[in-house]
């Protein structure tokens, strides 16, 4: 091979630069697993403050802390720190059995006291637990041997589901009381599969495998989670070999790279939906039904999301407990026109309203709304798009001031109908903007229903009623794209949490 002087100089410069700065690790054996994560971790206490209710951070928390109950990748509960759980016969007390032989990261033994203390702390409003009101349905926590009991103050059929949901983490009583909140923030310990070795806020966290983990030592001894919030940078990280695993990149990039890297794209528990507020034209059932029938969800998924999505007709996904495949809302533009005509609207006399959406908060959110508005226009609906930040959405929704239609994504990683249809559609909930008394009446009794089968059937009936009356527009279940180096096999979790201890050497 002949090299020109110019080429030789270029090569020399490249070699010198690489020698000086060091090339990133590429395909050599992975000693340290590097994950380019899509969010920052602001704080370590998984039970207080805004981070505690941020679903995207839970994967990091679950690497260090165990929840009361383990959640399998398919969302089903499994024995974790609690090996057994349930109510007494008259539902006045909860009884939990605690796993024995578990140790905290500092080597001290994990006990039932830790569980009782963690539950009592979560129920104490002074700690700042945003979900405090759920835990406060229990009181008088007591530990005896490996058994924890608590009195039921008000019966909540989903209380054990919260034990593998937001803020449902077990923290170390003795250690926390010794070091305090600041000490815990500086050096957090849990019983989870990984121990925190080094944490640089806004930069990375370095984890060491917990050799004594009750679920077995993780495959990777050291894991570095780098906080790379920009999607393009995450793709570059994994493409260049600087990181071994990343998630949440544009689907086009996923398709481009899944041939050279390992790719997993599995449905997760997040859904895209359009809230309908019962104001103005949305009080007209014909308008609502026309809106619903005019949307071709599958085509939107295929064209905009490269096929990565699952069309849904209720707020339940197939993994949720109250999913009812028999509830269908067909794409039928002719039917939509008929509904509109019945109310005096049509392509020449369109019904007009505003639809709000975020832009870039979720994959192709704005583009999806644009496509929907285009489909609506064909049948006689003229919707004006307003783009807003997600923070404004939360504020408007809490104040029940959303526009007649508003795009949003809803997460429900426990898969219970109360945390999807329930909170999204029950009028008094700050998350709902549909205030119809008929729906409140139907949902009300289900909150405290003790018969599980009856409860689930009740929610299915509610979903059928919502679909029939077009009280909300469910659109799709999101698919989470994950790319990993050839040497890493990732097991996706339907909650959307990216868990290093579920990653194995391929």
């Amino acid at each position, binding site marked *: 091979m002949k090299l020109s002087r110019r080429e030789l100089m270029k090569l020399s410069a*490249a070699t010198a*630069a690489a020698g*000086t*700065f*060091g*090339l*990133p690790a590429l395909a050599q054996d992975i000693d*340290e697993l590097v994950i380019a994560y899509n969010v920052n971790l*602001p*704080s370590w*206490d998984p039970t*207080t*403050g*805004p*981070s*505690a*209710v941020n679903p995207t951070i839970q994967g990091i928390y679950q690497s260090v802390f165990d929840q009361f109950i383990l959640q399998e990748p398919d969302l089903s509960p499994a024995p974790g720190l609690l090996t057994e759980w349930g109510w007494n016969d008259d539902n006045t007390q909860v009884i939990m059995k605690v796993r024995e032989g578990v140790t905290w990261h500092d080597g001290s033994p994990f006990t039932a006291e830790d569980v009782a203390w963690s539950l009592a702390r979560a129920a104490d*409003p002074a700690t*700042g637990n*945003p*979900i*405090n*009101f*759920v835990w406060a349905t229990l009181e008088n926590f007591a530990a005896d041997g490996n058994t924890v009991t608590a009195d039921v103050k008000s019966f909540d059929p989903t209380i054990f589901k919260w034990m593998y949901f937001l803020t449902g983490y077990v923290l170390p009583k003795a250690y926390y009381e010794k070091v305090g909140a600041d000490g815990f923030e500086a050096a957090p310990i849990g019983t989870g599969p990984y121990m925190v070795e*080094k944490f*640089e*806020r*806004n*930069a*990375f966290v*370095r984890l060491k495998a917990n050799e004594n983990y009750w679920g077995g030592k993780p495959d990777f001894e050291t894991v*570095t989670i*780098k*906080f*790379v*919030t*920009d999607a*393009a*940078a995450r793709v*570059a*990280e994994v*493409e*260049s*070999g*600087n990181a071994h695993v990343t998630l949440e990149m544009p689907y086009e990039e996923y398709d481009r790279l899944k041939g050279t890297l390992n790719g997993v794209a599995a449905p997760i528990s997040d859904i895209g939906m359009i809230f309908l507020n019962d104001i103005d034209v949305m009080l007209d059932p014909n308008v609502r039904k026309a809106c619903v029938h005019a949307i071709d969800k599958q085509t939107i998924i295929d064209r905009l999301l490269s096929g990565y999505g699952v069309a849904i007709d209720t707020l339940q996904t197939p993994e949720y407990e109250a999913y009812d495949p028999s509830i269908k809302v067909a794409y039928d533009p002719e039917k939509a026109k008929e509904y509109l005509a019945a109310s005096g609207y049509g392509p020449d006399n369109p019904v007009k309203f505003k639809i709000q959406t975020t832009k870039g908060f979720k994959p192709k959110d704005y583009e999806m709304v644009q496509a929907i508005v285009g489909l609506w226009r064909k049948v006689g609906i003229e919707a004006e798009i307003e783009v*807003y*930040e*997600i*923070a*404004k959405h*939360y*504020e*408007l*929704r*809490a104040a029940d001031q959303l526009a007649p239609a508003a795009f949003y994504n809803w997460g429900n990683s426990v898969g219970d109908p109360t945390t999807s249809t329930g*909170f999204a559609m029950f009028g*008094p*909930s*700050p*998350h709902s903007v549909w205030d119809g008394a008929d729906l409140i009446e139907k949902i009300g009794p289900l909150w405290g229903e003790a018969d599980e089968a009856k409860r689930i059937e009740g929610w299915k009936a509610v979903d059928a009623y919502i679909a029939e009356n077009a009280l909300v527009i469910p659109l799709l279940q999101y698919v989470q794209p994950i790319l990993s180096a050839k040497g890493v096999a990732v097991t996706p979790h339907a909650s959307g949490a990216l868990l290093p201890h579920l990653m194995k050497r391929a």
Partner: protein
Amino acid sequence: MQLLRSFLFRLASTAITLIGVAVIVFFVIRIVPGDPISMMLPPGATDEDIARLTALYGLDKSIPQQFLIWAGGVLHGDFGMSITARRPVLELVLGRLPATLELSIMALVIAVILGGAAALIGTRERGTKIEAGIDVGNGMALSVPDFLWALVLILLFGVAWPVFHISGRITPSLDLPFATNFYLFESVLRLRFDLWADIVSHMFMPALALAIPLAAIIGQLLKQSLKETMHLDYVTLARTKGYGENRVIIREALPNAILPTLTLVGVQFTFLIGGTVIIERLFSYEGLGNMAIDAVINRDLPLIQGIVILFAVIFTAVNLVVDLTYALLNPRLRHA
């Protein structure tokens, strides 16, 4: 005396500016839509739960009351607690400031080197194809925003030819002996050139992305000043004395031509620090800018206030320093 009086006057006006910024920021971020409580409202929260959380973060009081409480704290060096990080705001912003300052200074150095070289070569080769090439390069550098340069650099030197690190400030596995957060400077002082190389390989691309547009501005302005100066009588005199062209440009023309550029560099440096917000985000660089974006997304009001005020302090301080430097360098002002 005149200089001292001018300095004291600038100090007073700086203090008033900072107070104004504090008031505006405090009120504006509370008026715009989106509040932190709505962001953390859990499913099923009742009005009482919302009220409890609102009170917990002190947001139940009127905005003027909140301002007075906050201002009282600031006077005692307490900028409040970050809602998301639950750490003192001052500790957080001061912890990140060195990273942003180092990045900005490195970008400035690169910009001055690139822009200065372009101006000097352009002046030396004026009227030739080389000058035309430099003008074209300057035009391109100016018309492409820094975040696009960042993406181009990531693709070129992060992916296609992975010489530099794409994200972060330092390799996580390295043990750091540093006592301060000025990693770059401290690595030199400690003679830890292994760490220095690692830090530079993380900083180079974001710094270059920030520097390219500024380099173009410096290059254009300095070249223009140099060309004007080259027509002055004293330069002609230097030539008649037989000085070489390089000496004429560097020793004779440059000292006079550089003054307008110096003022511009000072002003642009403040814009450069502002530009770190996007660039730090793209490169996941743990500086103030990256933290600012998270604070805004999470509506972390105390943290937003702290960051904005710190940025304001930097801006006014840089402007003050530039004015003083200009006064010191300019004989007409120095002796006035």
